[in-house]
């Protein structure tokens, strides 16, 4: 594995051992998940224990230890979204993608996840794709929203 990107992130924090969490977040932005090799590089370069990195990486749901797709589809399952039909929206997304929650499509394009509230309850039911909010979403609108993120035909 090429560590250029990881090393650059680590150098940006000037050896501050309280910045492990921030370093992991930055690494996840680059790879969309936390590769084991990258975490081991953090252990080595920052002089912290494996347990310190691992306990942080496993504690926070925002971190993924498994490779994820190019686009992250996050369905809000908070109370407000739930009563406004979030489970049906999730079902529809799972059906269209052919994967279950926490899984990635075979072409590596989409990963479906749920979250227990994004704090935008007035917009429920809400689906977030790559950090973009799609509020008041109906099951009939799911394919339209997902199409915006699909690669246009013929492009690699």
């Amino acid at each position, binding site marked *: 594995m090429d560590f250029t990107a990881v090393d650059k992130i680590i150098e940006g924090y000037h050896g501050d051992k309280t910045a492990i969490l921030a370093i992991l977040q930055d690494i996840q932005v680059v790879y969309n998940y936390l590769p084991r090799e990258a975490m081991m590089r953090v252990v080595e370069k920052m002089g912290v*224990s494996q347990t310190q990195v691992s306990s942080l990486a496993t*504690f926070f749901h925002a971190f993924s230890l498994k490779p994820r797709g190019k686009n992250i589809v996050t369905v809000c399952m908070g109370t407000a979204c739930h009563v406004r039909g979030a489970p049906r929206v999730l079902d529809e997304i799972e059906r269209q993608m052919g994967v279950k929650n926490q899984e990635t499509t075979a072409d590596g394009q989409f990963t479906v996840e749920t979250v227990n509230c994004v704090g935008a309850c007035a917009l429920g039911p809400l689906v977030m794709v790559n950090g973009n909010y799609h509020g008041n979403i109906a099951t009939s609108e799911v394919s339209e929203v997902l199409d915006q993120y699909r690669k246009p035909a013929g492009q690699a």
Partner: protein
Amino acid sequence: MVEILLNGQKYEARAGETILEVAQRMGIDIPTLCHHPSVKPTGSCRVCLVEFSVRGGSKKLTSSCTYVVEPNMSVETHSERVLKHRRTVLELLQARVPDSPELKKMAKENDVRLDPRFPVMKEDCILCGLCVRVCDEVVGAKAIELNDRGTKLTVGGPFMESPEDCIGCGACVYVCPVNCIKMEQTAETRKIVKWDRELPMRKCETCGYPFMPNFQVLRFKKWADMPGEFFKVCPDCRK
């Protein structure tokens, strides 16, 4: 000095002392599981619950191992309310770990009901994290950790694998309040069963006794900058 009322009696506590420390010094028996004087308290097992109020204010429950005494404090260690909640905590712990003799003994001493109201889980560990704290704060190996959180919480090596930094010292085996960490030792190897960590042993050059794992020697040299000869013989032959 801080003057506090402990079960109606006046006691002089040292500033910064916890309720549990004062009670233990005064010979008042508060049950504990995750507490050990060598490491910082975390209050995770909850069996050391006590009830306290300050200046006649409302009574609150707290873990005595983490709560530092304050002036005009009145503490009850065995009130009806404390005993009731302590029983529930022990009942829950017993439902999780039903076969621990240590827990059974504590449950009996605290009159915990025998028919469990909670689903029995057949686990062996109460997830108190004492082994993790000892490995970090006393041994310094930082080999094990609490992984994930909530109902998925587990204890073990990084990424739920066998811990590479474990030196096989057995401190976790020694401190575990429910004895769920077992060590198997032969003339050749030592294994910490719960962590699936097996290490070859070093034999004393004088008497031949397998006195410590080779990996532990390597780490001790690194940590303490000790001469290599020091670890060639066992502590008994070193005299």
